[in-house]
């Protein structure tokens, strides 16, 4: 089975130059209907995006809309914040001269130089601690972990030095820092490189934990995270880096931010609430598209922030649909879905549930390598569809 999924970044993909969002020239739209259709394709799922583009002519949209990959959106966010505030700087492995292990920081070292974009040795505990110390002394570091798996080496600095300090000092010592990097499963990178850390970090008071899905999320949330005066764990997803999304006119502004702590309803529906974060929002939207043909309308909620979680948005939706399914890539035990279940039970939405909450999660095993095994270790669209139908008892 070949992988035609454009999400999957082969090792060569990220080395191809990508225009920083402004490269492809746009002219006024000629056929708004066709554009709207192709837009819908984009928004619904990146999976068919490329083929959608190829099928229809590549329509130049209004100057209002721009396509941008998640990678470029992150790059733009950092570029804008580096320019806006001199105290902001980026440090991590390969972020400078290599342009970033996943090319997220491409061009930044060339523009800002050694002082603001710092290559570190492979010493996570050391450089995470250095970043936290710099934040304590008045700078605003962005500390990149090549993947969050490596953050485990530095987790003491994230939790004990960053997250808890403002509280321990009773307000004397803030720590304005962003820890960012790819989180969760990639493709074929096996057990030690595939863990999802959303639940681990979201467990701790004093941290904000953010998990963007699309390019607008990525740009807006990263800018908010950098401007936030508190430690923020910013969980990206490697498989989403290369996926292009429509960027609204509003999101092209240098002051565009997405608030931390607010979820977004990506698709309205009446029959079931489907809550997800990061890459699996795409899966949920795909599942919703399939189910719509059978007359089941899913309301897809993109969490955007794991901590503080916007439980109110979920509750509002559940009180409308009476059914809830959570979808995540992480392991089931003590995970994001588990937390949502507990919170729903403790709040007003419980009485509106017509069936217990269902969690769709990764399989409770270390990630295997073989393709067929890996594919079956993570939620597939058919698993989401199956779970929704079971929850609705259809």
């Amino acid at each position: 089975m070949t992988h035609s999924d454009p999400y999957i970044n082969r090792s060569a993909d990220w080395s191809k130059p990508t225009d920083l969002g402004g490269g492809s020239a746009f002219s006024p739209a000629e056929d708004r209907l066709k554009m709207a259709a192709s837009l819908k394709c984009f928004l619904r799922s990146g999976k068919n995006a490329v083929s959608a583009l190829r099928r229809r002519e590549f329509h130049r949209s209004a100057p209002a809309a721009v396509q941008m990959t998640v990678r470029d959106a992150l790059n733009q966010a950092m570029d804008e914040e580096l320019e806006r505030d001199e105290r902001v700087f980026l440090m991590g492995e390969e972020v400078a001269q290599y342009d970033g292990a996943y090319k997220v920081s491409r061009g930044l070292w060339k523009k800002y130089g050694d002082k603001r974009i710092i290559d570190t040795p492979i010493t996570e505990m050391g450089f995470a601690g250095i970043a936290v110390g710099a934040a304590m002394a008045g700078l605003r570091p962005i500390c990149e972990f090549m993947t969050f798996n490596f953050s485990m080496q530095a987790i003491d600095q994230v939790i004990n030095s960053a997250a808890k300090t403002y509280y321990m000092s009773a307000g004397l010592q803030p720590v304005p820092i962003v820890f960012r990097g790819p989180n969760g499963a990639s493709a074929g990178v096996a057990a030690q490189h595939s863990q999802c850390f959303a639940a681990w970090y979201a467990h701790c008071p004093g941290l904000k934990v953010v998990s963007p899905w699309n390019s607008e999320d990525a740009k807006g949330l990263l800018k908010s995270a950098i401007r936030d005066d508190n430690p923020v764990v910013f969980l990206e997803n490697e498989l989403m880096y290369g996926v292009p999304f429509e960027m609204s006119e509003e999101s092209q502004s240098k002051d565009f931010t997405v608030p931390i702590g607010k979820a977004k309803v990506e698709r309205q529906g009446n029959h079931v609430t489907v809550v997800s974060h990061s890459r699996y929002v795409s899966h949920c939207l795909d599942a919703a598209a399939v189910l719509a043909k059978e007359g089941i309308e899913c309301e897809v909620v993109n969490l955007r922030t794991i901590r503080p979680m916007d439980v109110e948005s979920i509750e509002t939706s559940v009180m409308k649909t009476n059914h809830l399914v959570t979808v995540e890539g992480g392991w089931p035990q003590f995970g994001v879905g588990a937390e949502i279940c507990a919170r729903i039970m403790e709040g007003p939405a419980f009485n509106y549930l017509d069936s217990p909450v269902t969690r769709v999660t990764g399989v409770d095993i270390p990630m295997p390598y073989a393709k067929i095994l890996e594919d079956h270790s993570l939620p597939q669209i058919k698993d989401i569809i199956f779970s929704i139908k079971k929850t609705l008892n259809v």
Partner: protein
Amino acid sequence: MVGSCVPQLLIDLSEYVNLTSAAAPALARTQRQPPKPPPGARVVVSRSFADFTPQATFDIKKCDLHRLEEGPSQKAELTREQGLQYYRTMQTVRRMELKADQLYKQKIIRGFCHLYDGQEACAAGIEAAINPSDHLITAYRAHGYTYTRGVPVKEILAELTGRKGGVAKGKGGSMHMYAPHFYGGNGIVGAQVPLGAGIALACQYQGNNQICVTLYGDGAANQGQLFESFNMAALWKLPCIFICENNKYGMGTSVERASASTDYYKRGDFIPGMRVDGMDVLCVREATKFAADHCRSGKGPIIMELQTYRYHGHSMSDPGVSYRTREEIQEVRSKSDPISVLKERMLSNNMASAEEFKEIDIEIRKEVEDAAQFATSDPEPPLEELCNHIFYNSPPLEVRGTHPWSKLKSTS
């Protein structure tokens, strides 16, 4: 200098001197005036300040050097004022720590309490060599540094007793006290070292000519993250003075049992280092001055090993005699006590009188007593404070209490 039961014949020298010795050196005059004798008393002896040696130069122990052509000066100048200041600082720390010991045994202080008595020369000497605008971070044996970095004894003791008047409003405790340019107080062994290197990075980044003094113990000296910090500090020439306070024991483990190499000043390998007598405040001061100049001139980091000693055990839960002998402790007390060493120096060089020292002692005792009084009577922080200070500069948020009906409020 109040006399009692003495014969009538008295000469008040100070008045005599004021009238006739216009050429008295400026340094000899201090701002302090002798205390007014209580009514009816007769002053026994009133030595004028012009009698005291205003300044003296002392030979101090040579530092062992690593990758350094020359080290700190082997002569230290000390003015009377400085000497009294250092004495006051060290004695305050000493009395404060002993008071903490007392309060802990009365169960008024709880949890962890790691006392610094014996090591006072390190804190006092370092502070004497750096500017208030420089930065300092240390581990959990932090009460001395909290004081030298500007937090009053009252706020330190009240933090130990967990009251709202404590420097961290009672929310931090012994190991988590902070002040401007003082970053604690850190509970995780070794974690403060990368933090210190990061603070130095910020100094370099901001180009403010400030440095960061980053302290750790002989126990932490084997931590991997230290070597990671050394590597980056040297690579990027961060203005960081790494200081190992070697008090010979990491909790209950002697240095010989913990470290393959106990030459802690050499452990930075490519980073120059010095081994310093940490019981002599002047040695510490001169070495720190040398190190600070090194950093400020852009040469990069430097390591100092201060050879010092703690009288108490590792913490209040450790009697401190199962892994070392009482004789050893007693020997250090009698031969190398930092406060005694300074006092003897000043007395034998006529830089101050025994009465003066006694007077300072009395003042300090009172200060510490008052502070303890405050620390035991100040109320505990109000329950409304429980959830505050989770986030800085953020709108108020709701925090879940112990059960779902307990919805608590958190403000910045």
